[in-house]
């Protein structure tokens, strides 16, 4: 049989502004370029020779949709960013001629645009991206046409049980904050999007400003050349970001419960959610809450072993303790095999919550969870695009990537007592929202 092997082509690391310490988790040196208008770019040599990943991170997402009837608009606007400018009327054909992989995505706290392309196109990309962020221009008929594509995107996932569940959890758990709606938005708002042309112009003017956008450029390029290009093309971008007036979620005072019907066939899905703090790289209690999600409900937890592996009462047990830019939710969800056992499973989960409020987590379990989090980070740093994407969470929540090391230092310091304290503070009835999704009757 044939043997293939790669000749490894190492890139020389150029002079850097931030040299990595021996005990750092993030294994690459990087350089920061900061412009007077507030724009920041992080330059990282990593990944394969001859390629770059050009990732523009906008710190605006569905979180910023504060106006009535405008849910889903940040995502819709992401689509409009591909509709061209006066200088480059056809963004797609220019990037296609590079053979670039290009796309974008939107979530609660962010809108992220990326191209992965040969290094020779660096200047073209800097020109193209700075141009569309500054000078986006589209006509109303194009805007209306794109609204149809967004409706199609809404529809392709509309039957997913997880969208039903997510909408039900959000509308039950939140009273005021914009995390109340999903990123794709409510269907009525999506169908009304063709009428929002003027609003879209204002959306660009308010949010697509240099203070609110961070570029992470990763790959095979010369630092000095990249810095020169970034200064040349982005300096004239005028600041003017308007901070949205995002409603502060009032303090929840009692547990909430709701049952929602799914219009297809499903086993019951139980979702237990607790109000949680905003993400922090330095607050031990907050990082301990993330650790708690893993040790109490992760794939090696006692609860998982019992419910999923040994007793097989549930199809799966998932926990989501990722934390967001603003205070949000942590979640435990499970699909119950026997509809009559939903309450029993809920009791088991709540029993685990109580155990972690009283007992200290085993030291080896804690050490394994920390190891998992670090290796999980390292395992995701194989390509230039992966390296850039691994920085998204830090950029969106803090405006830069410096918090990476803070976060892992804080993680190292988390103790079993911190994990217990996090359970006592956050997994409380007064912050709890329980949603059960069941099959619609008659099905």
């Amino acid at each position, binding site marked *: 049989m044939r043997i293939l092997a*790669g000749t490894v082509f190492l890139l020389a690391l150029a002079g850097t502004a931030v040299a990595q310490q021996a005990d750092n988790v993030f294994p690459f040196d990087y350089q920061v370029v900061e412009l007077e208008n507030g724009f920041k770019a992080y330059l990282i040599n990593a990944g394969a020779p001859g*390629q770059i990943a050009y990732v523009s991170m906008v710190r605006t997402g569905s979180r910023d949709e504060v106006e009535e009837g405008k849910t889903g608009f940040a995502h819709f606007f992401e689509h409009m960013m591909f509709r061209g400018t006066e200088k480059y009327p056809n963004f797609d054909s220019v990037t296609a001629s590079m053979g670039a992989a290009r796309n974008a995505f939107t979530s609660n706290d962010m809108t992220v645009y990326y191209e992965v392309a040969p290094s020779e196109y660096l200047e073209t990309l800097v020109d193209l991206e700075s141009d569309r962020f500054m000078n986006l221009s589209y006509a109303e008929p194009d805007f209306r046409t794109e609204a149809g594509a967004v409706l*199609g995107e809404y529809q392709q996932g509309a039957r997913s049980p997880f969208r039903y569940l997510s909408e039900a959890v959000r509308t039950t758990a939140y009273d005021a904050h914009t995390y109340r709606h999903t990123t794709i938005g409510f269907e009525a708002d999506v169908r009304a999007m063709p009428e929002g042309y003027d609003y879209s112009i204002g959306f660009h003017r308010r949010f697509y400003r240099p203070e609110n956008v961070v570029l992470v450029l990763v790959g095979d390029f010369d630092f000095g050349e990249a810095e020169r290009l970034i200064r040349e093309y982005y300096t004239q971008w005028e600041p003017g970001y308007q901070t949205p007036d995002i409603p502060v979620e009032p303090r929840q005072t009692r547990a909430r419960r709701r049952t929602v019907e799914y219009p297809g066939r499903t086993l019951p899905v139980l979702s237990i959610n607790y109000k949680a703090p905003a993400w922090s790289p330095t607050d031990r209690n907050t990082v301990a809450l993330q650790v708690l999600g893993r040790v109490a409900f992760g794939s090696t937890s006692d609860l998982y072993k019992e419910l999923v592996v040994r007793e097989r009462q549930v199809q799966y047990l998932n926990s989501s303790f990722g934390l967001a830019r603003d205070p949000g939710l942590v979640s435990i969800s499970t699909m119950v095999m026997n509809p009559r056992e939903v309450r029993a499973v809920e009791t088991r989960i709540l029993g685990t919550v109580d155990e972690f409020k009283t007992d200290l987590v085993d030291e080896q379990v804690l050490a394994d969870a920390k190891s998992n989090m670090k290796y999980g980070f390292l395992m995701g740093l194989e390509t230039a695009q992966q390296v850039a994407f691994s920085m998204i969470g830090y950029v969106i929540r803090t405006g830069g990537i410096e918090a990476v090391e803070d976060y892992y230092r804080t993680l190292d310091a988390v103790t079993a007592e911190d994990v217990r304290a996090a359970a006592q503070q956050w997994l409380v009835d007064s912050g709890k929202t329980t949603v059960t999704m069941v099959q619609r009757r008659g099905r």
Partner: protein
Amino acid sequence: MMKRLALLPALLFVVGACEPAVEGAVTMREADSPFIAFNVWVKAGSQNDPAGKEGLAALTASLLSDGSTTQDSYDDILAKLYPMAAGYGYQVDKEMTVFRGRVHQDNLDAYYELFRNSILSPAWSEEDFERVKSQTMNYLERTRRYGRDEELSKELLFSIAYEGTPYAHPEEGYVQSVASITLDDVQQFYADHYLANNVVVGIGGGYPKGFVQQARADFDALPTGEVIQPAAPQPNMPDGVKVLIVEKDVDATPISMGFPTQLKRGHEDFWPMVAMNSWFGEHRESFSHLYNVIRETRGMNYGDYSYIEAYPRGYTTQVPPTNVSRQSQLFEIWIRPISLTAPGNLHERTLFATRAAWRELKDIVDNGMTDETLGDTKQFLRNYALNWGQTISRRLGYAMDDEFYGMDPGYLREIRPGLDRLTLEQVNAAIQEHLQYDNMWVVFITADAQAMKRKLLSGVATPITYAGEKPAELLAEDELIASFPIQVDEEDITIIGIEEVFESN
């Protein structure tokens, strides 16, 4: 404990290097990579499922991947993998089963032991079997029918095109067939197919010297035996247009259409058809011509693409799947769900989009590509394809497929020179050879299937309207699309209810 990551080679720079060949192994050593990727290929897939036990190959792989071994219980395996943030999984297609894994070099030895044991020394625990079977049954009875209509329409297209062949059933099987599978069935399938001479061990990345020999020797502990593989299936070229309408309470309709081709990797027309397909319908790319006609210009849906090779679960990925190698392929058009925009207009819009795609297919068959479109495609694809081999796991996956098709040099190394060599004449001759528009399998999942059937049979024009103004030339073209003929006879339209889908053979 943490090590600085080495910088990895791009596809562009991957070149052969000398390393002793190991029989029964595909290797891709990248010595400075901190990652090691595994890909163990068992030459058995859903086409090897016995009649009445459809889904057996998949359930076997599932139990190996998610079950206990004679050394470790399943929860102990999870506990050991956890600190490494590593895992392994399986994929079963028509002809291939693969087990894939990836680990950081710090943890290679401990990881490899778990990965190897999962395939070589399963515990055959009844509890594990019940768990994975119940998960499969839940998928078959609920998720597959209700979770995502567009994937279901694609599966149904393959099912009707390959009816009567070992490719006909979905890899996961039917509700009734999986319900009948026992642990004994699984053990028998393993005994029949998991043979030393039927397994190829793929390893890539920064593994130490001698590691491949050790791994191959481990897998040589499997018994050897004779394996008789089914002949390549002969799919059914429809005589005219054959339509399947699935009745379901929806307000958006996915469309899948296609027909069999003789094309596969290694065929002399393969690269010409790769170029054609990239221009006509590159997967989830705005470069796709169908995308431009239906989504970009008319805003009818989320995307429109075409395929010359199987592309399951395309909604989850933008890069082509590896290890779905097949001896028989379809040409396939995927039109993502078309939404109702006003009461009662779902069928008109669905048929308009169907006609638009069909008309474009007729155009490329009748007129071929041009120097300009071929030039644009070469320019696009020669760099775009670099994105398909970005990780060691994907490069290894491609190498396993090269082994399946006997491609040397392999796909990733050959695509650029293959494209560069193409002439317009070659591409247009290949289009003439492999594409046509008279014979077509078509699948719709829609509400009020009888009304859809009547509309399709009536042949009436199905115009659409827009939320905004459109140029006169586009509206003129719309008139042609709306009345594009789809010749179909009543007896060639089948309607089934959603609860009947994949219930049994």
